[in-house]
């Protein structure tokens, strides 16, 4: 069973943190297909957060096809991320390396690169295409 935690200073909204933690667990193999996620009540008891937040996170995961609620029983993992993300990692890494090379050639130092990346990353909310 996954153990959730919350960092309110991270700038990431609580429900997104939960989603990310589940995804990370799936990626790392800590959660497998068929495992049950903690119930809403359990998460609320541990973290003292709004139950709607938990529901929203679980709905998001369901929307991504990662989990499936079974009425009366709980929410269960239906898919892991290990394979999927690994497959996407390599081409993305290559593109990133190429981009980094271009940025360095243009004269940007480390901090500028990081600032450019961070501001652009934040401006494009998850799932929105420009």
């Amino acid at each position, binding site marked *: 069973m996954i153990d959730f935690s*919350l960092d*309110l200073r991270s*700038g990431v*909204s*609580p429900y997104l943190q939960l989603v990310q933690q589940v995804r990370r667990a799936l990626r790392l193999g800590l959660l497998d297909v068929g495992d049950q996620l903690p119930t*809403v*009540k359990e998460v*609320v*008891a541990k*973290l*003292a*957060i*709004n*139950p*709607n*937040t938990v529901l929203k996170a679980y709905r998001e995961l369901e929307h991504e096809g990662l989990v499936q609620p079974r009425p009366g029983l709980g929410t269960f993992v239906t898919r892991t991320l290990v394979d999927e993300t690994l497959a996407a990692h390599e081409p993305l890494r290559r593109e990133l390396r190429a981009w980094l090379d271009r940025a360095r050639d243009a004269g940007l130092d480390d901090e500028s690169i990081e600032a450019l990346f961070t*501001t652009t990353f*934040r*401006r494009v*909310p998850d799932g929105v295409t420009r």
Partner: protein
Amino acid sequence: MTAAIRTERLTKRYGRHPALTDVTVTVPTGRVVGLVGPNGAGKSTLLGIAAGLITPTSGEIEVLGGRPGQDTAQLARVGFVAQDTPVYGGLTVAEHLRLGAGLNPGWDAELARQRIARLGLDPARRAAKLSGGQRAQLALTLAAAKRPELLLLDEPVAALDPLARRDFLRGLMEFVAELGVGVVLSSHVLADLERVCDHLVLLAESRVLLAGDTEELLATHYRVVGPRGCADALPAGVDVVQAEHTARQSTLVVHDPGGALLRSPCDAEPVGLEDMVLAHLTRAAGAAPAPTTEEPLEARR
């Protein structure tokens, strides 16, 4: 769907002192709503009116579609925990539950008993001997075990230490998960709000400054950092809530419900809940315009 609380130009004056002025706000059901504002903003008054304990001077208010406090049925739908969680010092915990059972038609004795047992409260203990946190939990149990549709809490954690505060919020959220009850929680401590509230109403100096879903508000507030001229270059529809300028740079907190900022050249980043709230409260308090500071290094060169 009926709103949890709907007010229209609600006003309450104590003598000449205005506690609420022309408050028009709609609070949705099924949410945990944070009523935020500094001391004396009118939060207690608004909650007291919604609970039927105070009569307004003028304006209208509707709670779950009914008039607050008008009869037993309406009172049974709304639970209320007053500031500093009053309890009868001479009565034991068990007698308080008996009080609840006798005065509330919808009392869930099993829920109350389970909660008291889980909290580790001794039913034979007199309420005067409980700690502040335990008293708050008892008051919360009394309000929640009557299975209301709406829970109003007036700064229930203000006087509690951090651990007791966390325990109280945990207990409150467990009730929300179990009963599906809507909550309106007033606080002037911002730290707890983000984990608990999914809707915010900002009150300051008897007026409403801001109201909306927490997520939406956070998504439409930005901190804009840029060269001095950036403040003037902002597109229309962007409300500058707070601005600080140095000789070269401006730091603004802005509210951009229309998303116009994304297309401007200024650098915008998200702003945290605390800073967003503080920016609005500062503006409402009529703070002096942000001082301009000369950078000493510049002057020396």
